[in-house]
């Protein structure tokens, strides 16, 4: 095996949520002054609950990432949206800096986070090849040497002296990819640029990527296309909420990832209270999702109500507690937070149900983050207690079947009336 060419050590990146800074120069100055004297930030909100990787006004997009890449290795990076893949690539390609930690790199790095960066509509194809090549870090002589190859690969010879604003979108993308594909650095960082062009060109792109991987260059590759990852990468890193969840042989990690993300969690039992989530006051026994009308086959459609059922074991006398859950989308956007009224129960089994009405959720993957608070403190917290996908339905009135955007799709009262003739 070759020597290490990329070494990532304790890499972390924090993003501040919401308003950037405090919004005014004077407050920023007083915040800075407080920090200089070692005092706490006077504008930090207190008492915010820590949800996963979210902390107060900031989010850790990456937290303590460590890995090494050897020369000639093709490393895949996978993970759900918001897992930190893009942030990692941005730091490695120096678009943004880390909050803490180090990255050491040996060799020239070329990064393709987008094809056609810096293309100027008024310039001709020829001028754009030189400009884009230089932006990606190529010297003029390098572009000179590869010019014919690039033009040939893109298949736009006839229009090479036409401004790119006259190109079709397919031609534009092909030219852009052709420049990127001929970037000749020792280390290449690629983010999903494969999904361009028509099917024939995509095949050509994939072939080119395969060549790059076989040339013995070091490649870091981020994609949602698992079959491409599996074909090109010997090793894969799976990111989850900003941390490395697993790494190793590509087919194993991919299987692991697909199991975590694609398996709906509709029902979970805990047979032994001691192994179940909870503490000395309360233990979880069962969580499940069901149709309200009691169909034998679970049928989660946006136009049908559904019921969440939670069963717990209350282990002490006169235990006062309440159930609470947040519903998140797959992108970790909180749709809502809901809680039952605190009540006191004797020792024993307690069951709670919560109904989500029809025509409220969108067709999306949702996850339920369950909490039970005993006597005012958190007795149990289970993120991703349930994961389910709502199916699209009830669109025939509109006759339009594109993606219905939004985290919710509530059916609201519309009133459209004819007022009078013109």
């Amino acid at each position, binding site marked *: 095996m070759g020597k290490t060419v990329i*070494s990532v050590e304790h890499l972390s990146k924090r*993003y*501040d949520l919401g308003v*950037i*800074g405090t919004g005014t*120069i004077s407050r*920023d100055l007083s915040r800075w002054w407080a920090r200089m004297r070692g005092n706490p930030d006077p504008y930090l909100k207190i008492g915010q609950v820590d949800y996963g990787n979210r902390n107060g006004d900031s989010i850790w997009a990456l937290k303590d990432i460590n890995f090494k890449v050897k020369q000639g290795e093709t490393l895949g990076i996978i993970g759900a949206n918001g897992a930190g893949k893009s942030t990692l690539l*941005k*730091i*490695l*390609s*120096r*678009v*943004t*800096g*880390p*909050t*803490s*930690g*180090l*990255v*050491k*790199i*040996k*060799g*020239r*790095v070329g*990064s393709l*986070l*987008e094809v056609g*960066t*810096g293309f*100027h509509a*008024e*310039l001709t194809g020829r*001028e754009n090849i*030189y*400009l884009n090549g*230089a*932006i*990606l*870090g190529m*010297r*003029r002589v390098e572009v000179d040497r590869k010019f014919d190859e690039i033009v040939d690969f893109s298949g736009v010879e006839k229009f090479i002296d036409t*401004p790119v604003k006259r190109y079709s979108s397919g031609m534009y993308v092909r030219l852009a990819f052709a420049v990127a594909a001929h970037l000749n650095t020792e280390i290449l960082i690629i983010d999903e640029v494969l999904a361009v062009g028509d099917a024939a060109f995509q095949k050509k792109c994939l072939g080119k990527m395969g060549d790059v991987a076989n040339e013995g260059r070091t490649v870091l590759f981020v994609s949602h296309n698992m079959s491409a990852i599996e074909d090109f990468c010997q090793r894969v890193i799976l990111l989850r909420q900003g941390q490395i969840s697993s790494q190793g042989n590509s087919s194993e990690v991919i299987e692991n990832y697909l199991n975590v993300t694609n398996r709906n969690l509709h029902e979970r039992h805990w047979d032994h209270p001691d192994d179940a989530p909870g503490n000395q006051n309360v233990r979880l026994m069962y969580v499940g999702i069901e149709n309200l009308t009691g169909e034998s086959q679970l049928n989660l459609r946006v136009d049908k109500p559904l019921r969440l059922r939670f069963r717990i074991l209350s282990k002490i006398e006169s235990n006062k507690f309440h159930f609470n859950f947040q519903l998140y989308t797959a992108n970790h956007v909180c749709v809502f937070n809901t809680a039952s009224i605190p009540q006191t129960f004797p020792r024993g089994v307690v069951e709670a149900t919560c109904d989500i009405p029809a025509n409220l959720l969108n067709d999306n993957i949702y996850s339920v983050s369950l909490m039970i608070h005993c006597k005012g403190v958190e007795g149990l917290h289970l993120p991703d207690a349930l994961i389910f996908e709502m199916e699209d339905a009830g669109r025939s009135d509109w006759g339009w079947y594109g993606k219905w955007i939004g985290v919710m799709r509530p059916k609201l009262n519309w009133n459209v009336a004819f007022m009078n003739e013109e």
Partner: protein
Amino acid sequence: MANTKIKDQEWDLIIKPESAWWDLRLREVWRYRDLVMLFVRRDFVSLYKQTILGPLWLIIQPLMTSLTFTVIFGNIANLPTDGLPDFLFYLSGTVVWNYFADCLKKTSETFISNANIFGKVYFPRLVMPVSTLISNMITFTIQFALFLAFLAYFKVSGADVHVTIWALALPLLIVLMAGLGLGLGIIISSLTTKYRDLRYLVTFGVSLWMYATPVIYPVSSIPEKWQWIARINPVTPIIEAFRFAFLGAGSANWGMLAYSGGFTALVFVVGLMIFNRVEKTFIDTV
């Protein structure tokens, strides 16, 4: 410790949260010189595509401005011009001021107007402002040639103008203007990543500054008690020296130019420091 130091030298690049403010990586900018020239070319080519007159606009613009000034300030307001032909006086001021103002205005937008490129690919961020300076340099050269042409014309027609030995200081004057414009521009561009208000401030701030600078009037016409304003303005000595060099009127002195130079150096260094700090993570806030 010594051991890790030796090991670190094996790496070509170390990405870490903080870097020393003096570490400007100018060598890297030099390595990207092809990109600088391509940006210059892009700016120049794209500016006048699909215009009928093309680069002629570079000449028309200062001509029209100077004509307007001649009519309004020379003929209507009757401002003094140190005994020089009105048109030449205004043209010299406009050409010099435009170079400075364009450098300042364009570099002050470095981060905001290039956010989409900066967000996708790394190259030394200084490449952008440096290429702006060079693009503006081309404009200045053309406009300066225009000025020389009119100078020759007026000279032949017998106007009382003469080129002095100070003309040799022209490169120095250009460096001062470029340095001052770049320094202020990158300070503003670094701050606008957080505080957008500054963009609006720059737009009218620069026009106000022009009136505080002897572009449309000579320093000698300023009443004694307001002279200090002209004196603390670092652009004043540059414009005055330019006029003295090519028209032979006004005042040029090394003391004032040294003040401009010191001011420029300070702004330039502070600008680079701030720019260097901001360039790493500005993409998170812009």
